[in-house]
């Protein structure tokens, strides 16, 4: 494998691998405290209206039932101040409404009552005995129906989503330019990590412990403690492993507070393991998008104007914007005129949320398909078209991208894939009776950095424990942070234990936006400096130390396990000797939480390219992806195996998006008809191709001292477009509404 040596960390096995393959890894709902009871929900099957009556008599009398809560009797937490919750340590909510708060029904599948019983079997049965009657009202379920209520948000998470540069409309009327304009549609997609969300709530007086499947233990702690008006530390949140998330465990969804309410009502700990069907209605989804893109270019392929207009849905109880245009067209190519518009339509469907690369993922699908269409119109190679429009500077901010190596991605990818052998003519390539298509697309995801703190306990035996309230969603965080801790602290990998997933630990932000490695890595860099300084403080006062009477500020780590003078490395002392002579078993330091400095002189963004081959039987046209080459420029890769796996997983999810994933709704009740894993098709092993992953570029030290830009999300971006473009190349048919299921290709025969 030709990898660029200086960006790749070691190909270590995961430190938590053994726990995961032996079943020892405990996920949140697997910590069953004594007397733990089980919750089972009752839901609305109307999309809008009021709860007329809740008859829980029969259910209450059923065996094992401990409590039944609804808006009529639920213990009432208060609304945690919502305004402060955006993008900060205060936690995230997308559905901005307390469960069982009132008699209003805002979407089908809304929890309207919760039964608590001693066993799962009893709770499930009794929930079926609760009779809830509704007074339905006419719901708004489509963009068309919600037209009057449409909004054009200026920002999404403090980032501008309506962009304007140059005169797009005038350029688009220039008859000398080659133009395309098309609308691309993506359906509702649902995260569906294999671990369903879930919370165990256990009260002990005014202290609450939550074992919660979450991407943000500190956020859950903040929201829940404020809701119950408790000191923050009275709420403990524990989550050592997350069974996949992809965004749906970032916000605090109704089941979290509901579990704490039910535990209060029942007087025992309560486990609320969200059902798979409720993962489609109560933990968010990717909103459907309608994106219209217009591109105008000169004959030699130079973009002169780009317009990206997006319509998406949100709910009536929370605002979420999937900013497709800003996060794709707004960052990708060098064009003198760019316009991005976003319109959001509130409907009576549960609240959408961020799903792996929110904005970038559907945005790059549409943009990169549009670029493919432009390449066809120009009779230009799709790779050449992209090279011709390569942006050295951020197209809107007009500052240079840091450590950008996208050209190399195209070049390495094309070479590995054999792109030069592509016949540009659609339907020209075959494998026996199968049509063969080759497509490509650019990938991109911004580098995000938030704030975090960390604690180190260094022991006299040379081992260390490092703690941060961060998370491992399967991303390899345990391994990456063990690696970074080892490097930064100067302690052998095997002697570092990295702990995460507890709100008791120093602050870690939401594990979302591919920010964790950069953010926590920076905190680890800082805490390592503090540790070295603390050791120096001991050494300079120790007459037996070679560093005696030196200035602590002149001292730094000079090699693993030793601190010494910055300008005379030979004068040094070992951590172990310093501690032993000081009679210390251990030393403990913790970094402070501080806002990250924003570098406005550069733009930090990862890029990549996917090259995809599909094969299609023209008569029975199910698309099979047969191979993928993915080349990624994301700064430094801390640990190779999990990083490569992230790209493989992202591409596979992109293949699912392109070919099979869609949550469809019943037009009458507003309930999803697709709400289980038999009907919601994710990629199976038999659908997954061989995926060749290469990382190129250089560490991005301008971004952070670790040099990494994050890796969780870029994998999915562009992938669906590369598949769709390959389908076009194979068949000559451009399908512009995902997923590309066999029925949409019947006319290619």
């Amino acid at each position, binding site marked *: 494998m030709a990898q660029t040596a200086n960006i790749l960390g070691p190909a270590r096995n995961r430190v938590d691998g053994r726990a995961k393959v032996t079943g020892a890894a405990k996920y949140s709902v697997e910590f069953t405290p004594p007397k733990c009871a089980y919750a089972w929900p009752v839901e609305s099957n109307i999309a809008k209206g009021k709860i007329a009556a809740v008859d829980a008599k029969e259910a209450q009398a059923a065996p094992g039932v401990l409590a039944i809560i609804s808006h009529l009797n639920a213990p009432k937490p208060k609304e945690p101040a919502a305004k402060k919750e955006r993008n900060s340590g205060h936690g995230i909510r997308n559905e901005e409404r307390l469960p069982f708060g009132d008699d209003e029904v805002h979407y089908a599948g809304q929890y309207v009552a919760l039964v608590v019983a001693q066993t799962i079997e009893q709770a499930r049965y009794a929930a079926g005995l609760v009779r809830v009657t509704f007074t339905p009202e006419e719901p708004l379920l489509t963009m068309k129906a919600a037209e009057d209520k449409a909004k054009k948000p200026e920002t999404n998470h403090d980032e501008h989503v309506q962009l304007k540069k140059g005169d797009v409309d005038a350029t688009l009327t220039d008859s000398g330019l080659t133009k395309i304009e098309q609308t691309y549609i993506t359906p509702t997609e649902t995260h569906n990590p294999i671990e369903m969300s879930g919370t165990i709530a256990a009260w002990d007086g005014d202290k609450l412990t939550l074992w919660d499947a979450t991407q943000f233990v500190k956020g859950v702690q903040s929201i829940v403690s404020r809701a119950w008006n408790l000191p923050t530390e009275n709420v403990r949140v524990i989550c050592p492993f997350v069974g996949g998330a992809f965004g749906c465990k970032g916000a605090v969804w109704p089941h979290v507070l509901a579990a704490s309410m039910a535990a209060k009502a029942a007087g025992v700990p309560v486990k609320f393991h969200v059902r798979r069907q409720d993962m489609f209605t109560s933990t968010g989804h990717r909103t459907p998008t309608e994106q219209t893109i217009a591109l105008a270019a000169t004959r030699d392929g130079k973009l002169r104007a780009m317009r990206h207009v997006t319509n998406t849905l949100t709910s009536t109880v929370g605002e979420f914007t999937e900013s497709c245009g800003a996060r794709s067209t707004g960052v990708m190519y060098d064009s003198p005129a760019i316009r991005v518009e976003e319109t959001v339509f509130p409907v009576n469907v549960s609240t959408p949320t961020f799903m792996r690369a929110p904005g970038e993922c559907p945005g790059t699908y549409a943009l990169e398909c549009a670029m493919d269409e432009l390449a066809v119109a120009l009779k230009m190679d799709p790779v050449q078209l992209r090279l011709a429009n390569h942006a050295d500077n951020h197209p809107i901010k007009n500052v240079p991208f840091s450590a950008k190596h996208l050209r190399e991605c195209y070049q390495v990818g094309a070479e590995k894939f054999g792109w030069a052998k592509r016949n540009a003519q659609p339907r020209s390539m075959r494998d026996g009776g199968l049509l063969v298509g080759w497509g490509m697309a650019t990938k991109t995801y911004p580098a995000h950095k938030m704030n975090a703190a960390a604690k180190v306990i260094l022991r006299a035996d040379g081992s260390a424990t490092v703690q941060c309230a961060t998370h491992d969603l399967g991303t390899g965080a345990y391994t990456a942070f063990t690696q970074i801790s080892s490097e930064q602290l100067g302690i052998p990998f095997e002697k570092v234990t990295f702990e995460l997933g507890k709100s008791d630990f120093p602050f870690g932000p939401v594990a979302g936006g591919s920010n964790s490695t950069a953010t926590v890595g920076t905190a680890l860099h800082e805490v390592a400096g503090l540790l070295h300084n603390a050791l120096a403080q001991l050494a300079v006062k120790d007459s037996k130390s070679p560093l005696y009477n030196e200035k602590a500020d002149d001292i730094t780590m000079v090699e693993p396990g030793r601190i010494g003078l910055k300008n005379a490395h030979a004068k040094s002392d070992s951590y172990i000797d310093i501690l032993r002579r000081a009679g210390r078993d251990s030393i403990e330091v913790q970094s402070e939480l501080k806002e990250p400095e924003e570098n406005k002189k550069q733009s930090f963004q990862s890029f990549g390219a996917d090259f995809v081959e599909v094969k299609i039987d023209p*008569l*029975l046209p*199910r698309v099979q992806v047969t191979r993928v080459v993915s080349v990624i420029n994301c700064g430094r890769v801390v640990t190779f195996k999990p990083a490569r796996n992230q790209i493989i997983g992202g591409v596979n999810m992109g293949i699912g998006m392109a070919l099979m994933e869609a949550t469809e709704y019943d037009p009458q009740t507003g309930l999803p008809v697709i709400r289980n894993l038999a009907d919601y098709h994710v990629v199976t092993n038999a659908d997954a191709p061989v995926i060749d992953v290469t990382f190129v570029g250089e560490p991005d030290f301008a971004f952070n001292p670790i040099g990494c830009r994050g890796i969780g999300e870029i994998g999915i971006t562009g992938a669906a477009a590369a598949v769709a473009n390959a389908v076009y190349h194979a068949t000559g048919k451009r399908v512009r509404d995902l997923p590309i299921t066999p029925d949409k290709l019947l006319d290619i025969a």
Partner: protein
Amino acid sequence: MNPFSYTRAVDPQQATSVIGSNASAKILAGGTNLIDLMKMGVERPTQLVDINRLPLTQIEELPNGGGVRIGGLARNSDVAEHPLIVQRYPVLSQALLAGASPQLRNLATTGGNLLQRTRCYYFYDPAFPQCNKRQPGSGCGALNGFNRIHAILGQSEQCIATNPSDMNVALAALDAVVQVQGAKGARSIPIGDFHRLPGDTPNIDTNLQADELITAVDLPAIPFATRSHYLKIRDRASYAFALVSVAAVLDLQNGKINGARIALGGVAHKPWRAQKAEAALQGQTADEKTFRAAAEAELAAAKGYKHNSFKIELAKRAIVRALSTAAAMA
């Protein structure tokens, strides 16, 4: 899931007498469909009669060259890989292996698969108020709802659900005979009479009586069934229900079709025996043109809905492909 009593049957007679005397008792075999439906609250038996340990797992030749008998409890995985099935009825082996997953096939039984209920969203999820199959008289939610997976043949205004089984399609093409035992004795039900069309009583899937237990499925001796093929078209490569499937068995003599047996899956409330197509093939030359004409004849009566009209053309092509594949076999 409502509480139920559990009885382990000691012999088939006992099992049939329990279900014959308690209308809300159900037979439990592999459970892959029944337990699922009980969790959903669709099936609500008060008693389960576990037949898993009854000696009904045989796969054996019938006497005097009479074909093969498959026990009602033979697991789908065992049937699929049994030499008698692989060699003599490849279409059945292929159909079974196209269904579900290895784990589910290890549990699922022949009898249970015959009784598999529809995957119609409106049936499976009681949150939907309308389903004539689940609650007679409530209406059909699929008719004006999302109906991509629904029927195009033999449906009624009361129900447009499909039978989701792969195995049943192959059994239909093979003229299987379902052996059942009731409180009053045993009888044989030809596969074509086993499943029902929805008509005005979509709540009744099959002609199995309340006291009857499936003890075996007999496959008649069909020497030319070695020339057979099962084709399944779905949205992903594996572990998905059929959009459309075809079981095709061809009797070819010198390039002429001496007989053909074709059944379709995913298109109707029962495995759909394509008799019109079969008639159109009789005595014809085995080529694509003939196959297409036969497919057209079969699907002439098909009716699609908002989301499933594509199945009509897809079914035609699937018939052509399945027949072509069978015809090309050595």
